[in-house]
């Protein structure tokens, strides 16, 4: 009976929703004009054909009326169909003998005559899941992910010999790095939302905040679970750091893959260099907590894999099936994970008797942020 009482407000709220949404109550403002909105999420250059992935990111149903290439009308086909409900997606196939390396603008005109367009800097053949692509993904995954992290982990013996003040500074340096990563990842999530028009369809900014908060809570639970299972605090921290960085690297991989698929080759290689440098310092962040713990080579390799391998998965997903919404959520989730890692590190350091307001920690954290900022500008 008590449970049934709890359902009463729900039932009333549902009734109100039905009333508001039903035709006729006159709750729409007079003269309401709802403009259609679509996003061209991906442009692929296949053999003799350009394929545009179109999503209805507005608030009304739309019909795709025609496609154009460089503002010149072309015959095309919309699959599965031209009518798109909210958030529905269609692939517009435009037979076209495109020239590799040249820029193109793909336009989609809706039934009300509005034209939406997406520019591609240089046409490159669509990436397919063949041996060449796989070797590219493996190479990028290794160069950007696992190897730099492993290089960073090589600081571990040096950190182990440090006196307590210097060790506190190194741990704080790792926290500074992570703080930068969290901020950077969140910014990227918001950028993806803005660039791909996710704000109107998915409420992009709050989607990012929500994803970050949920992952923060999940990581909090995971860290408590690891401790209950008997994991040493430093090892648990290192695993969390590696997992957080792994999520961040998954997002970065998406960016690299998407840039490669969109023909932004120069941008993609810049991302590769930047992320590789970035990951060397992140290896340090993983090494710092476990510097004095007994972790075997296999354990270290596992941490490097956890942090580095997701680059490969991200690059593959970004190149083969880039989804702006998935990328925005992943990047925001990574930010939430990294923030949780910082919080865990802080409480662990306090339990180790390190003063969080002491000079070594403050200087180390500042240096960490500044280092990654410098890397982001220079690389």
């Amino acid at each position, binding site marked *: 009976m008590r449970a049934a009482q709890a359902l009463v407000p729900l039932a009333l709220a549902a009734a109100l929703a039905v009333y508001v949404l039903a035709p006729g109550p006159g709750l729409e403002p007079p003269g309401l004009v709802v403009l259609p909105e679509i996003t061209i999420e991906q442009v692929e250059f296949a053999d003799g054909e350009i394929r545009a992935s179109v999503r209805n990111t507005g608030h009304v149903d739309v019909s795709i009326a025609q496609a154009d290439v460089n503002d010149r009308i072309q015959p095309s086909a919309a699959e599965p169909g031209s009518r798109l409900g909210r958030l529905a997606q269609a692939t517009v196939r435009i*037979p076209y003998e495109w020239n590799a390396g040249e820029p193109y603008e793909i336009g989609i005109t809706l039934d009300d*005559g509005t034209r939406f367009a997406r520019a591609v800097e240089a046409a490159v053949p669509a990436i397919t899941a063949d041996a060449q692509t796989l070797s590219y993904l493996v190479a990028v995954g290794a160069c950007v992910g696992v190897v730099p992290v492993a290089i960073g982990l090589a600081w571990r013996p040096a950190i182990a010999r440090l006196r307590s003040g210097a060790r506190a500074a190194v741990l704080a340096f790792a926290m500074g790095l992570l703080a930068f990563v969290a901020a950077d990842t969140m910014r990227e999530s918001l950028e993806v939302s803005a660039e791909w028009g996710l704000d109107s369809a998915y409420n992009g900014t709050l989607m990012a905040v929500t994803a970050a908060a949920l992952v923060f809570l999940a990581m909090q639970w995971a860290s408590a679970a690891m401790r209950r299972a008997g994991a040493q605090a430093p090892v648990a921290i290192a695993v969390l750091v590696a997992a957080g960085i792994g999520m961040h690297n998954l997002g970065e991989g998406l960016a690299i893959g998407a840039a490669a698929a969109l023909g932004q080759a120069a941008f993609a290689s810049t991302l590769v260099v930047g992320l590789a440098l970035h990951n060397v310092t992140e290896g340090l962040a993983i090494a710092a907590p476990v510097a004095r713990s007994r972790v075997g080579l296999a354990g270290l390799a596992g941490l490097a894999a956890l942090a580095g391998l997701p680059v490969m998965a991200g690059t593959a997903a970004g190149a083969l099936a880039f989804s702006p919404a998935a990328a925005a959520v992943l990047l925001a989730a990574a930010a939430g994970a990294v923030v949780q890692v910082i919080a865990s590190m802080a409480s662990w350091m306090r339990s180790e008797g390190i003063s969080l307001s002491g000079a070594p920690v403050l200087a180390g954290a500042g240096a960490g942020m500044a280092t990654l900022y410098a890397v982001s500008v220079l690389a």
Partner: protein
Amino acid sequence: MKTVTRPVAMAACVAAVAAMGAVLLVPQAATEPEERAFVTHSGAVVRTTGEILDPLYTASDVEFDPMEYLREFHGGRVSALPDGRTLREFTIIAEDDRVMEISPGVFYNVWTYNGTVPGPTIRATEGDIVRVRFINNGDKDHTIHFHGIHPAGMDGVFEPVGRGGGEFTYEFEAAPVGVHPYHCHIMPLEEHIVHGLYGAFIVDPAEPREEADEMVMVLNGFDTDFDSENNFYAANTVPFYYQHHPIEIGLGELIRIYVLNMVEFDPINNFHLHGNLYDYYPTGTQRVPSAYTDMITLSQTERGIMEFRYDYPGPYMFHAHKVEFSEKGWSGIFLVSDGQ
């Protein structure tokens, strides 16, 4: 033998009902989508299970028939005045609430004279008295401004005709000989023109021109997303219309086209004819052609008369040689028939 217990039987029934429901509710998933084919610019045939978006090669029903408009001339209600001159009376009604499918699947609010863009082609002989009863059934003020020779009070500029049924009668002597535009002259002028308030006005010489297959081509464009650039171009409103509905003409027959450029936003338009050249009479005011050419350039409201005959049968393109315009709809085909 093991007996079937009641819970097991219940579960089996529920599962069966659920399976039937699933089959009934998602029949689309079970049926194989139908395949269709379309032809690309280069002639390749592409197959799709989706919907074809093809304003170029797919014939489609539009509310306005460019083929009918092409050869439709309105001489008005004809009567004789006491002084022996001919009176031609027309009624033109302006509206601004129509939505027209100007290209397959693209809907646009057109402002119309007598329900179409372009408005009716008005035709008189020099010296006739033209009397146009103009009724404005729109929601905005409109007028008709004729190009040509007439008194200031008949110019359709300083006499806005009120919305919701306002009336004005334009009356003047048809002059000079040639082809002229008429259009609304209410500010903001560009808006009133590009929405479709224009048409052709032909004044024939008293001594008739040679018998010919005569046509009107109003070159126009539509800015359907209001960014001051045309999204579509056409001869007679519907993009690519005469490309998928070729204009049939006779071998050796004299063809006369009254061509009028009403494209806004772009400074020029042009007209290129394939496999032939034409005599061109700018504005149609002189009986001597200014050029024998296959290419003329027209600025806003520039117009003239083209005359040509084909010596060989077959399909011949005509289009803007400003290729952007032709690739956005301003292209067509003459199909020259030798009667075979």
